[in-house]
């Protein structure tokens, strides 16, 4: 079955920060998804960090000012979707501000 993808934006605050969620489906089922935190910096949405989740495989990408991945941090192996999602959301909810601050420090 062909894969289809869909992106959804989730506004987080009145600053304009967003979560961009990308779902990849095969038929009805979701086979992969990614959650990306984007910070609104001077009116421009900039990618800061992304959590990528597929069956049994999940990792975090730290992103630089130009949108390139500068670090790939694996999450504990062989997680099912729900466990991977829980880990990613907890990490992001706890550390989004630090990721944002670190991103701003990387500004050229």
């Amino acid at each position, binding site marked *: 079955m062909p894969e289809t993808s869909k992106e959804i934006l989730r*506004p987080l605050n009145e600053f304009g920060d967003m979560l961009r969620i990308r779902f990849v489906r095969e038929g009805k089922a979701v086979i992969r998804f990614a959650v990306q935190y984007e910070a609104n910096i001077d009116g421009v949405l900039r990618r800061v960090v992304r959590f990528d989740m597929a069956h049994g495989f999940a990792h975090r990408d730290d992103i630089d000012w130009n949108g390139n991945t500068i670090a790939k941090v694996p999450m504990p192996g062989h997680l099912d979707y729900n466990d991977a999602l829980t880990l990613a959301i907890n990490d992001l909810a706890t550390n989004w501000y630090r990721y944002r601050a670190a991103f701003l420090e990387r500004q050229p």
Partner: protein
Amino acid sequence: MTDIYVIDPLTAEMTARNIRLTGRFIAEILETPEILDGIPDDATVVLLPPDDPELAQYNSHMMPALADAEVDVHVFMVDQVRPDLSQWYPNHHWTQQFRNLEPHWPATVAPGSGDLQVIYDRERDVLRVDFFGGRRLGIGVPWRTGTALLIDPDANDEIVGYFIGHFLEVAAQRAPQLITTLRMAEFRSLTVEELGGLVPPPAPEAGGNRTEQEKAGSLATEFDQLTA
């Protein structure tokens, strides 16, 4: 200029809560992928949690600005009741689209004979003007102080009528030319449908909080002044 390095405590708290709420949203999608079928690609989804009214209010306040920016805004109620049968999922409306209303007058008001319909609700002291003979039941939208519009959302937010509240107690005294409108009005209570979802505030007692004798005396005085 906003200091991009400083996040106030409220924003920080709501951001964290919204991230966790997004986790719940994604979990619902993983369990019921049909939810995605009702959400357009690149849509902006505002989540309303039934168990966090503070966050629900915070998220609601973001919606008008998003709609103003011409973003495709959809509202999803987290933990909503699902249809009894999964076969019904494809036809279920999982989200509601949000947009700002843009009321405007139609090209022609009261296009046909008998289309102008005026109703005065004495108990509520509300005047309802309908330009389409009751054929188009619009949504009631509060407008300026004491007034409301009847808008047809299926016709690009055309104004099909309006309400004037506190009509005799306030509006007609400010604009006496409106009083003659009563001569073409039907005097009766407005139905729930005719109110378009609005709940007018209660009207003060006619003539104020005075005894019947005081009101009668006042009317006698007015007559003397009118005929002097």
